[in-house]
């Protein structure tokens, strides 16, 4: 283990270490804590210039209610849900099948196809912007959640297929062979043998893709206009322009925008980290 485990330290240093932890954490999260505190501060206090002291009265209820009712925050939030959930389900479904095919079957073009998926991940999204925007306009999907769903499904599929293909490659191939000998067709092999085994990978991907899509801002800007289909990232960013001084409302909106992905992360931490660090220790 590196660094030397703390049990082997001198007691004084050990105590020092434990004391520095909360301090370091506080400094690290200071920007976030400030937002949390401001989101419960009343407008009067803010206009008096009390930005950083402890709030005298808590206006949590008022601020959040105002952020929720005077702006279409809830509408944006709902749009985000409508975009994110189908995008996650769609990209994982497509990628599971593609990853399965790339890992199990050998055919000419397999590596090329795989390389295409990998390369697709690294493409700067800006290079896709104009044609995708145009395509959505032509399909009549511009400014609808479907435009965003379709794009996210396609873009995330590459990443997920790469991930799942590597995961399936690590499974013992004998399982597939045994199933085939027993007369299982390919769909059964996929559905009954492989899919149950890759459940942890699917969970890891689901949570990763959820945060990616939920936090997306660029595509939301490109493929929506006005409030109809705008997700919460766009809504919060717009809040800043609208009420440059009403930081308590901006913070309440930010919290709302951050809540689902942070909650997802804490709920499924193990999967999240496993997904994120996949391939970081080998290869």
């Amino acid at each position, binding site marked *: 283990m590196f660094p030397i485990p703390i049990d082997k330290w001198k007691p004084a240093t050990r105590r020092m270490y434990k004391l520095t932890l909360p301090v370091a954490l506080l400094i690290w999260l200071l920007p976030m804590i400030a937002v949390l505190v401001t989101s419960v501060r009343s407008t009067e206090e803010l206009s008096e210039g009390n930005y950083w002291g402890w709030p005298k009265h808590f206006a949590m209820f008022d601020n959040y209610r105002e952020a929720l009712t005077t702006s279409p925050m809830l509408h944006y939030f709902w749009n985000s849900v409508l975009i994110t959930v189908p995008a996650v389900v769609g990209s994982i479904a497509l990628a599971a099948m593609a990853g399965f095919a790339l890992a199990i079957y050998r055919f000419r073009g397999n590596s090329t196809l795989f390389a295409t998926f990998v390369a697709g991940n690294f493409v700067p999204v800006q290079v896709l912007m104009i*044609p995708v925007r145009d395509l959505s306009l032509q399909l009549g999907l511009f400014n609808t959640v479907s435009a965003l769903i379709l794009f996210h499904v396609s873009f995330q599929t590459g990443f997920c297929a790469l991930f799942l293909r590597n995961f399936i490659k690590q499974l013992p191939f004998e399982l597939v062979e045994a199933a085939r000998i027993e007369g299982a067709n390919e769909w059964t092999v996929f559905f009954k043998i492989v899919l149950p085994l890759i459940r942890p990978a699917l969970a890891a991907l689901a949570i990763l893709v959820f945060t990616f899509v939920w936090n997306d801002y660029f595509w939301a800007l490109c493929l929506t206009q006005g409030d109809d289909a705008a997700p919460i990232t766009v809504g919060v960013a717009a809040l800043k322009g609208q009420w440059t001084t009403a930081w308590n409302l901006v913070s309440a909106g930010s919290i709302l925008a951050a809540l689902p992905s942070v909650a997802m992360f804490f709920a499924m931490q193990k999967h999240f980290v496993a997904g994120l660090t996949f391939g970081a220790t080998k290869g």
Partner: protein
Amino acid sequence: MSHSVTRHTVSGPAEPGGPGLPTPGGAVRGGKPASSRRRGPSPTARRQRRAAFLFLAPACVMVAIYVVWPILSTIRLSFFNWDGMSEPSFVGLANYVELFHAQTFYTALKNNLIWLLLFLLAPPMGLAVALYLNQAVAGIRIVKSLFFAPFVLSGVVVGLIFSWFYDPTFGLLAVILGHGVPVLGDPRYATFGIVFAALWPQTAYCMILYLTGLTSLNAEQIEAARMEGARGWSMLWHVILPQLRPTTFMAIVVTIIGALRSFDLISVMTSGGPFESSTVLAYYMYDQAIKYYRIGYSAAVAVVLFAIMLVYIVYHLRRMLRAEQ
């Protein structure tokens, strides 16, 4: 160099209904013995080929439509003059010529470079934090997750948090310094201010990579090195870091990609301003297309950005495919 990826994708089976995915005679894993393979595909092999095709088709169609085709289309558009509505007119290399004479292009390029260089501080900082947190103390798990939390935040939220942190009248920075500095309003500091904000989640990302890397260290090697008297820095440099090489590689990969993709923070914090001083290629491209309807020109910017990234993509792909074989 710019052909390699596009060539794959044109001739490759990524096309919808691509020409015969699995080729005849292609050995299918777990297929029939070699003798039957010689005389054309066996029924099993044929069935498996069809299965492979069907499993791949939906993903390939979507990727072809939304990733591969747009890249080609953007490259084509960069030779046209187009406002998005009227007929595009072919202008040859005019967009590129204009681009290479535009002051803003060089500003964006310079800022991209600043981003890249400063962003590479994230892996060492992440390593430092990971080493600091790699102890078994009560509650360390929650501390680790809280340290990681900034990464889960959307770029918009991080941008808002830091715009406020920098606010010269009441921001935390003004409180700390005792007087306001308009970081985001000053062309000299704006980019640095944004990169600093972006380093916050990126360091968290690298930290989690290194924390995972640290758990898979070879304990025997470390013990042996300790017996030999290796301590502190020399231990880190000669024993730990070589073992962490895959992690470092991955951390650098994600950091470089992150640096070249930077858009959200710039858009939220400065909109590329003041006077386009904090713009980067990604933002410049967006601005030209959405605000000024200069589609062809902005496609040219995108192609330049893509070309820069392509060097990197090709390097990465070659490394990966070599590791496969």
